[in-house]
């Protein structure tokens, strides 16, 4: 396996903040809107440099979605930011009609996704957002894995013409992808070549999958590790090419097993190449308070659970 150097633990939302600032510097049409969470969304540096391009919307997410849609019509590139739960579940109909159906070039910046939001508990921990957003026709769904990739994904979202859902998180996590990697929307990233099993991971669980792959390597299991940084449009060819070689896969995501990446890939495999597959995901439960590390373990999302899923799926081959 390659060496994955942790360049320092840092939150993916800070990657968004850095990406937003750079996107704003590159393009004068980039504007930012927030629903009373600028600190959480790391928008401070953008606001400092471009105060006239920032709009505080208050705790009124539905209106924020609409205002962004209206600004997009007139050529602006709005990023709306809040916790993932509050820019999806709370305003699903507004996102559906005012952004997706109306084909508005709005970027939905969704922080604090998944259980790793931690102590705030289930009300704030969305595990359903990928499902909701991927169901909307034409919605691009990005789920980068670390600080560097979140920054790159933010820049890619700004350049892309059309609605984008950009999912990231709250806690500090290892930052291990190369600094200058360009983010290609729709392209899965093959991190490891292997022959026994394919691990398809997204978001925070990419690092957990790296740890799992390292553990399995010492047992002589050859892992092909693919980072699904774009959930929609899904890079079907790369996935099919990989499982054609390994004949089985594990899908790992910090999301409900229903409606998320795992089900998407299960559908793809059922249609095209039905190989054994295991899911590492939350099994029909709400989250709860705890530290990110505790919750990853408790909800079956950490490296040991991925190792277990790999063993299981190889046994099913």
């Amino acid at each position, binding site marked *: 396996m390659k060496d994955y150097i942790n360049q320092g633990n840092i939150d993916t939302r800070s990657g968004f903040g850095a990406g937003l600032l750079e996107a704003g510097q590159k393009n004068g049409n980039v504007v930012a809107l927030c629903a009373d969470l600028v600190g959480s969304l790391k928008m401070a540096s953008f606001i400092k440099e471009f105060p006239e391009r920032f709009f505080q919307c*208050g705790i009124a997410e*539905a209106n924020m979605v609409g205002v962004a849609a*209206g*600004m997009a019509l007139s050529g*602006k590139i709005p990023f709306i930011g809040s916790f993932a739960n509050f820019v999806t579940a709370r305003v699903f109909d507004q996102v*559906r009609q*005012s952004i997706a159906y109306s084909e508005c070039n709005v970027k939905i910046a969704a922080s604090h996704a998944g259980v790793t939001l931690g102590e705030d508990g289930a009300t704030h921990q969305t595990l359903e957002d990928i499902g909701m957003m991927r169901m909307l026709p034409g919605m691009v769904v990005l789920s980068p894995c670390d600080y560097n990739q979140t920054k790159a994904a933010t820049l890619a979202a700004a350049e892309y013409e059309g609605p984008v859902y950009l999912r990231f998180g709250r806690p500090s996590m290892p930052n291990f992808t190369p600094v200058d990697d360009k983010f290609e929307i729709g392209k899965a990233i093959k991190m490891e070549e292997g022959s026994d099993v394919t691990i398809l991971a997204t978001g925070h669980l990419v690092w957990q999958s790296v740890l799992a792959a390292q553990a399995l390597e010492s047992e002589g299991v050859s892992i092909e590790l693919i980072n699904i940084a774009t959930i929609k449009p899904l890079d079907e060819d790369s996935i099919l090419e990989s499982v054609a070689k390994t004949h089985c896969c594990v899908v790992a995501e910090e999301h409900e097993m229903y409606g998320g990446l795992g089900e998407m890939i299960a559908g793809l495999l059922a249609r095209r190449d039905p190989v054994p597959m295991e899911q590492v995901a939350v099994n029909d439960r709400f989250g709860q308070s705890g530290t990110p590390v505790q919750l990853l373990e408790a909800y079956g999302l950490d490296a040991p659970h991925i190792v277990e899923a790999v063993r299981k799926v190889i046994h099913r081959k």
Partner: protein
Amino acid sequence: MKEYTLPEIASQIRRDIIRMVTTAKSGHPGGSLSSTDFLTYLFFQEMDQTPETWRRDGKGQDMFFLSAGHLAPVLYAVLARRGYFPLSELGTLREYGSMLQGHPSVRNGMKGIEQAAGSLGQGLSVALGAALAKKMNNDGHTVFCLTGDGESEEGQIWEAAHFGAHHGIDNLIAFTDYNGQQIDGTTQDIAGFHKDLREKWLSFGWNCFEADGHDFDSIKLAFGKGKEARGSGKPVMILFRTVMGKGVDFMEGTNKWHGKAPSEEQCTAALGQLKETMGDY
């Protein structure tokens, strides 16, 4: 080409609405008929926008957003009569493959439609966003938005009200079809707060005027006051007092015709009360 007066145009548009909804066998005639006069005024007299210059980004012209999307029949008829698309399309309302979707869509290439509407309460926010972008772009034109009084029961309307006042969006003129009816009954019986709708908008920090939505002089005056409010630092809400089903006696003042199509006989009776002025499509 003959010049038509506003009442003549409005009468023809009311005929169009009745005929469209009758053919479609579904749709919303009540609010369409109550909104006919001020929308006719807006598109034929007020807005700096033409079928030739219309573009979705609204650059260098006024923009109009329909928030209460079920009023599609009146908007389609006004747009067609103003020349945004061929009159012959009006006969296709709600048909498979038609540009004239049951509620407005931006996906069928129809000129004059800025944004999808139908799920209520969303259009005012979008209009505020467009108005804000116009300010940023130093475009001195006005953004107009039509909401319903029943629609004003949606919380997002009041989120938008807060936002528009707080950000001083005074290049927006919103107006409400204040007909006092909604599907299940009167707005007073259903939601209770409509007697003081004007006070509500004023208390949210908006300029708010009431006008007779069936009197072209009153409509003109109201839009004029709305324009004068530019520079006040406050958005404008005009409450157009109207009668649901206006122009057809058996449809007037009742919620029964909010979302119901007339039968052929009822259509004939309705058309007997509405003068054909510009020629039916």
